[in-house]
């Protein structure tokens, strides 16, 4: 009987797999970084050969149905959601496969002709439920429509797409934790029991310096001829482990994730693990199935490939010369952001863009500044090495209190081998007392700036090209430019904060005043006042009188 059920089940699954037109792949890239860290990037891609415009998503065999419903209901062309904790350190770590800012970032392109503002709000609320994050705080007060910074990553059917269909918001104060990972794992085809997803144990992946989970949905070409469309969903997890926190430089899958890979997910057509061993003297155990050499933009990368079979897999890496420290060559472009000034009157937001390349680079700086930080456009100053730089283009929509944030996009040419600083001044303002959060003295966050550019070289570059969807597509993928979207730190700004114990004091004082005023008021209104002539009493007489009264009381 049992046998029958199992075989029926297998038959059913086989049927499902066959009826599903598309592919599911999972990949893991492990890359020891120059400094004391190791970077791991998981990518689960579900490609579904349907036309997203026509499909009703009523029957979605392997594609996560909740997401399908969202796509259909809110007319979504493209959707990118990332939840990140920690900061990606570009200067030391190079570029990640997917850039993400600390906190939550949501970027969506809507189909032309849809009610974008309404759908955006509904989308945020649906995602909030789907990922158990406070995405419902996304509304008009923190949403902008960037014009230059973001391009659609997928294919476009019409040329109608412009920035009125894009919405971007970030929630820098959102804390990402296990509660976001669990619902995210539910969207995977094999959940987290088998395949690479079995490595995602929340106990281990939150012990990292950086972790970011993401959902990226876009329409792609079904094949080379690109006659029909497919819908692609990429689910990514990026983690950066620190050797010092791990306790050793020799890592293994078990050490990083708590366990090895537990069999292959049966629904997956391709399940690979790549270990980057470029310039690293690493001995891998078990030996890899294949060695891949990739030349991309003049950068040679050596990768060891493991094909996940139906057996348990634990990769163990041993550094031959553990004391060897490789020299860190910073990436061509990185940036950071800080506040200038002190006190609570005036301040400035400074974004520093470092160009380490030998040639000038064109960049787009985008800033989404909350409405409670009123900035002054005339103070915008771009300098490099003491010279003023004139922005090529400027897009600016000033904030409106409690309605919309400040949107600023600056197109710049960053001179070679310099740090260019973009400074804009602002005023500190008081908020209404109810607008302060419960931890009022913590301060308020300003989200990270986004600096996008096409880099001429692919040094420290790992991202997948836009025409590919797998990590393996990034091998030997030389292009004319390499898109990076560098994120900066979030800022914490201390607005003038009232003393919140003050209302209590005010109530006490007001009550006292009312109580004290009541007596005379009552007297005046209820008593009849008669003028009486007053005899002048000398001080001595008064004292006498007082003494007499004392005497009297004594005798009594």
């Amino acid at each position, binding site marked *: 009987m049992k046998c029958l059920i199992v075989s029926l089940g297998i038959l059913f699954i086989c049927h499902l797999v066959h009826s599903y037109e598309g592919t599911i792949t999972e990949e893991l890239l492990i890359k020891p970084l120059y*400094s*004391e860290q190791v970077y791991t990037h998981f990518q689960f891609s579900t490609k579904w050969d349907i036309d997203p415009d026509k499909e009703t998503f009523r029957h979605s065999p392997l594609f996560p149905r909740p997401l399908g419903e969202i796509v259909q209901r809110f007319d979504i062309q493209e959707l990118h959601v990332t939840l990140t*904790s*920690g*900061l990606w*350190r570009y200067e*030391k770590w190079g570029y990640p496969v997917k850039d993400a800012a*600390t906190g939550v970032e949501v970027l969506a392109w809507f189909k032309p002709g849809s009610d974008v503002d309404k759908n955006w709000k509904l989308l945020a609320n649906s995602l909030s439920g789907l990922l158990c994050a406070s995405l419902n705080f996304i509304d008009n007060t923190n949403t902008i429509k960037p014009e230059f910074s973001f391009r659609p990553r997928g294919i476009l059917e019409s040329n109608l797409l412009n920035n009125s269909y894009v919405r971007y918001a970030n929630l820098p104060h959102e804390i990402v934790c296990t509660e976001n990972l669990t619902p995210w794992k539910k969207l995977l085809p094999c959940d987290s029991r088998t395949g690479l997803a079995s490595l995602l144990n929340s106990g281990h992946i939150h*012990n*990292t*310096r950086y972790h970011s989970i993401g959902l990226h949905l876009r329409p792609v070409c079904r094949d080379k001829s690109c006659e029909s469309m497919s819908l692609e969903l990429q689910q990514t997890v990026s983690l950066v482990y*620190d050797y*010092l*926190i791990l*306790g050793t430089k020799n890592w293994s899958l078990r050490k990083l994730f708590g366990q090895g890979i537990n069999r292959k997910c049966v629904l997956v057509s391709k399940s690979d693990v790549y270990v980057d061993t470029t310039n690293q003297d690493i001995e891998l155990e078990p030996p890899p199935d294949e060695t891949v050499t990739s030349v991309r933009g003049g950068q040679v990368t050596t990768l060891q490939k493991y094909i996940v079979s139906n057996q348990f897999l634990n990769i163990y890496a041993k550094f031959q010369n553990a004391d060897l420290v490789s020299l860190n060559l910073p990436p061509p472009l990185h940036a*950071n952001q*800080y*506040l*200038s*000034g*002190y*006190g609570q009157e005036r301040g*400035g937001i*400074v974004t520093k863009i470092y160009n380490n390349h030998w040639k000038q680079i064109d960049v787009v700086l985008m800033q989404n500044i909350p409405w409670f930080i009123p900035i002054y456009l005339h103070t915008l100053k771009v300098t490099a090495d003491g010279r003023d730089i004139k922005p090529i283009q400027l897009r600016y929509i000033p904030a409106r209190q409690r309605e919309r944030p400040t949107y600023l996009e600056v197109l710049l040419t960053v001179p070679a081998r310099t*740090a260019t600083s973009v400074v804009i001044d602002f005023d500190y303002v008081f908020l209404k007392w109810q607008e302060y959060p419960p*931890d*009022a*003295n*913590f*301060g308020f*966050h300003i989200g990270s700036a986004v600096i996008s550019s096409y880099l001429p070289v692919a040094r420290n570059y790992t991202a997948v090209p836009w025409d590919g969807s797998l990590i393996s597509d990034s091998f030997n993928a030389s292009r004319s430019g390499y898109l990076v979207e560098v994120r900066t*730190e*979030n*800022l*914490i*700004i*201390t607005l003038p*904060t009232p003393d919140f114990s003050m209302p209590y004091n005010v109530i006490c004082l007001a009550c006292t*005043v009312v109580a*004290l*005023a009541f*007596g*005379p*008021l009552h007297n*005046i209104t209820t008593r009849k006042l008669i003028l009486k002539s007053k005899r002048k009493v000398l001080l001595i007489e008064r004292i006498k009188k007082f003494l007499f009264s004392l005497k009297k009381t004594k005798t009594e």
Partner: protein
Amino acid sequence: MGLLTDPTTGQGKFIKILLKYYSYACMLLYIGGVIWFLALAYPTMNANTYFSENALLPGLVKSQFREDREAARYHEELLDEMNKYHDSIPYSWLLAKFNQIGLDTYTHNFTLTSPFNRKDKFSGKNVYGILRAPRGSSSEALVLSTPFRPSTSAHPPTAPSVAIMLAFAKFANREKYWAKDIIFLITEHEQVGVQAWLEAYYGVSCGSENILDHGDLRGRGGAIQAAINLELHSERIGQMDIKIEGLNGQLPNLDLFNLASKMCTKEGVYQTFKNKGPFYSRKPSKEWLNYFRNMLSMMGTQATGIPNGNHGLFHRFGIQALTLEGFEQSRAKGSNKIWFVGTGRIIEGIFRSLNNLLERFHQSFFFYLLPSSDRYISISIYIPSVCLMIGTMFIKACARWFKLQETSCKEMSTETHSPPVRIDKIITTFLVTHFFGVLVSNIPQFMSRYITSLSVYETNVKVFYPLLACLVQLLFIPLFIRMRHCRKSMELLNILAMLELGTVLICISMNNFSLGFFCAIISVPAALLVNPSSCRICSYFQRFLWFLVHPLIILTVAVMINTYFLFPEERMKEIVIRGWDATQQSVIFSIVDSMVYGNWLYGVVTNIFIPNWLCFWIVSFCVFKEDEIDTEKTEDITDKDIKKTN
């Protein structure tokens, strides 16, 4: 409670009482203020310190710091390095160590142009490493700083604090619980280094233009929440002194002081404030005296407005900071000495508590006095003492005003002739004195900027003597004021000066209580005694008395007394010479401080106190004819007349 009573009723009575008794009231209030102040040190007037911020959770975790051997090794290596570099910071060694530990390491260059000689430039180099918090995203940071002192430095050595800082960095970088970046900062040239680093961190200049070129920083760690400055003079610490007084008398949050104090106690080191540990005595008088001395010692440091450690420069930027100064010798009998493990654990405890903080420090007091390390006096308790004293100024001004009104009323009725009161002249006099004040405050900058040919002379010749000459010249101002023959004008000027003095003193004591208090206790009684009078002897006495409270005279006297106590064995003449030199130095230092750090003591004294002093000085030179006094004498008679008619 007369909340709803008509304010105009019975006004005449109050005025009469005021006019009759105001001098007694003033005296009484002044004495009351002094007594109140003396009582502050009495244990019932102050309270035990306590933690107001619950998030700190001090000392709740088990200390894990065990890097004492590492610290000792760093110390040995550093001493070797220091022998190679006699008067500069061994930054290559420090950079290598920070890198080895795994911190983001940066250097910071700065240049100081001498305020009095533009050609003299001093450059310095700070080294800092940032521990990037695994649980944070570089939006908040804590600072652990230490001044680097080369072996040739006049100050006690701080090499052990560099060693313990490195060992702590090594320990901390392995831990995964940090939510705030920790910046390990080693500064050169004492306070200039820290000031330059902070200015570079915030991209601002605090002092005069073009004096301190703060350079730029490449690495930052977000908003700095707190800073601990280490000055450990030995590997073995027998006594840990906590220093808190900052620039312009700013103090760190009391919670931070309590935290440091508690962690020191936890590790069993004899912990002191102003070199005095906790003190208990059965005799209340003895206890009072001890508290009082300690409080005065704190107020003395606070009043100067000069930070007594590198922590003092952080306060301006809203960063709570203090210095832990460790001595090998302990004042306590039989106290034990702690080694690197103990000091490391003190630092660990403090930083883990600070790491727990969610909101920045806001709970506890920012304005307080400490009579001992475990007791505090809050602002609500100490401010009445100075308010009582300063209140006399307003009472006297009020009374004098009413008196003036009455005499003018009488004059109207009796039609006696007196010179007319020229309000415009009074205002002009008042403004002119202040204009001179502004001039005096700008003399040093002017001298240094435009008269470059003087650069061969010494600073005191270049700056102090012109300043002194100006001040002496200003003494002759009253001779040029013609309206000093008009009694009423002088009265008005006196009232104006008293109101100004009162307001200024109140403002100062809100910001820097100690300075305000000391100014008030000296200047208020003298100001009360200065009146326009016709009596020659009184007038001379007034002038003499008021001359004694000239800011420069006070400074000279204070420095002389200090010199006498520092060098008791020397003869009087030598003490006077030394004291005079020290006075010159102190004036020059206060000017330098105002130009480099933005210390406002010099500015306040020259822009406000000296003009105000001049106003009173003019008043004391008042001369008027006898016939006006007759009207004063008739006052009483007319007073009685009015009463009768009533």
